[in-house]
């Protein structure tokens, strides 16, 4: 192997350029598959980020029994804060709550407050956020049992719908990524197999002249790596460009969807795509070759 390494490299190089159609076909197949895989990955990551945010916006409204005095209310706040799974607790005095309700009906002509007078019918409340959005229901049920809690409201139906939608989105995106990954593996393997197939006589002949399997394999492998790397680099280049322009153009328009800008994470995505390309290039070659090496 090491003795011949220089030869293997040169061999891979000339073979790549002499079998140009095969090289181009393999590179473009790899590039397209990796590109689509990358698009799907970025899409999924961003969608997940978005639904994470939707979920983490969920809050439990805890209305306080109007019979509680200020100290007791504060105690309830402490109790809420110390409940396991609770991330944050915000106190909303009844006046604030009325103001919020008013907003909905505000007009220049008169205010809800005027109608209600000093007799604000709303109770004090706490807005509670869970560490794990999925624990909202469980936590709400726990809180309901606490003394001094008049009522708990967490938009049961809405939350359930949201969770079933986000669950669906997560499942679908997982399935899609798996499906695309499987398809990419298969399509790349098929292309390489066809490329190797059209060189089967060459392989047969090398065996007849006394070449060992590994002597034949090495240049093919190097070709596989090179094709895999070049293909996925092209795909990654396109991804970087496309995602970059997306970040620039869409970010402002739809500010509330937080596109992933974290360059560490993106780099991770890109590197794993690159690795996938190279591995597929080699693995595809390995399996395709073995079939024709048995002479």
């Amino acid at each position, binding site marked *: 192997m090491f*003795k*011949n390494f220089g*030869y293997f490299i040169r061999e891979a190089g000339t*073979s790549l350029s*002499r*079998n140009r159609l095969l090289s181009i076909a393999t590179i473009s197949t790899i590039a397209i598959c990796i590109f689509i895989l990358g698009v799907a990955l970025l899409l999924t990551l961003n969608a997940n980020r978005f639904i994470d945010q939707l979920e983490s916006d969920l809050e439990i409204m805890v209305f306080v029994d109007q019979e509680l005095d200020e100290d007791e209310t504060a105690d309830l706040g402490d109790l809420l804060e110390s409940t396991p799974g609770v991330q944050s607790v915000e106190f909303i005095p009844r006046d604030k709550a009325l103001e919020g309700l008013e907003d909905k009906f505000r007009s220049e002509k008169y205010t809800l407050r005027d109608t209600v007078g000093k007799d604000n019918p709303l109770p004090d409340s706490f807005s509670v956020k869970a560490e794990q959005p999925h624990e909202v229901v469980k936590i709400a049920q726990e809180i309901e049992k606490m003394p001094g809690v008049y009522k708990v409201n967490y938009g049961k139906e809405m939350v359930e719908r949201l969770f079933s939608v986000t669950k669906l989105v997560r499942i679908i995106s997982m399935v899609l990524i798996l499906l695309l990954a499987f398809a990419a593996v298969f399509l790349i393997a098929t292309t390489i197999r066809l490329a190797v197939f059209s060189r089967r006589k*060459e392989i047969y*002949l*090398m*065996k*007849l*002249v*006394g*070449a*060992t*399997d590994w*002597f034949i394999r090495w240049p093919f492998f190097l070709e596989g790596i090179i094709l895999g790397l070049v293909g996925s680099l092209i795909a990654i280049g396109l991804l970087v460009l496309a995602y970059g322009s997306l970040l620039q153009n869409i970010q402002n328009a739809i500010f509330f969807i937080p596109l992933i800008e974290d360059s560490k994470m993106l780099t991770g995505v890109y590197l794993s795509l690159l690795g996938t390309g190279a591995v597929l290039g080699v693995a595809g070659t390995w399996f395709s070759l073995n079939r024709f090496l048995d*002479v």
Partner: protein
Amino acid sequence: MIVQFYNVSKTYPNGVKALNDVSFKLDQGEFVFLMGPSGAGKSTVIKLMLREEIPTRGQIFIESRSVVRMQKKEIPFFRRSMGVVFQDFKLLENKTVSENIAFAMRVVGAGNQEIRQRVPQVIKMVGLDGKNDRFPSQLSGGEQQRVGIARAIVNRPLILIADEPTGNLDIDTSMGIMELLYDINRAGTTVIMATHARELVKDSYKRVITLDQGRIISDNEAAIGDAI
């Protein structure tokens, strides 16, 4: 004894009996012609020697090794002891003349230095001077055949097997090739040559094994008149 066929029969998967109970022995340094009509089984003998095919019955020993029982991983090393000119040339189409010949040297682990020296030598021997960088598709039939010959002799093999090496060559070039083979044989290499060219065999007074329909019908050191 360097090559031994013991009661070898070969039936191809489609049922064709190509060889039928063939036995012969070759001594180291012998020169043997394999003759016989088209379809007699000459190429099959050669394929069996190379282990390109496996005999249906019988045993083959080359350098005292059983070709039939050989392990898979030994095969490449075993093949390197032989240089073969194939009837259909079997050149690498994507490699130039030099590269085709150099490939056979790389396979046996020759160094760059040695390759650079030896390849032009054999190219000259077969009369292909100046065609080093041509691809097989850019050569005439006879030129391709000579590339095959050059590749077979480049490693100075222990056994040289030539299947119809002059089928596409004119008589003068053929004579030249025969001289080359005789030289190689004189240097100690065992040579087996399948051929139809009576005029090459006639005056050689070498051993001639004649096959017909898969059987050896004569095996003698004789002038052509007797052999066919």
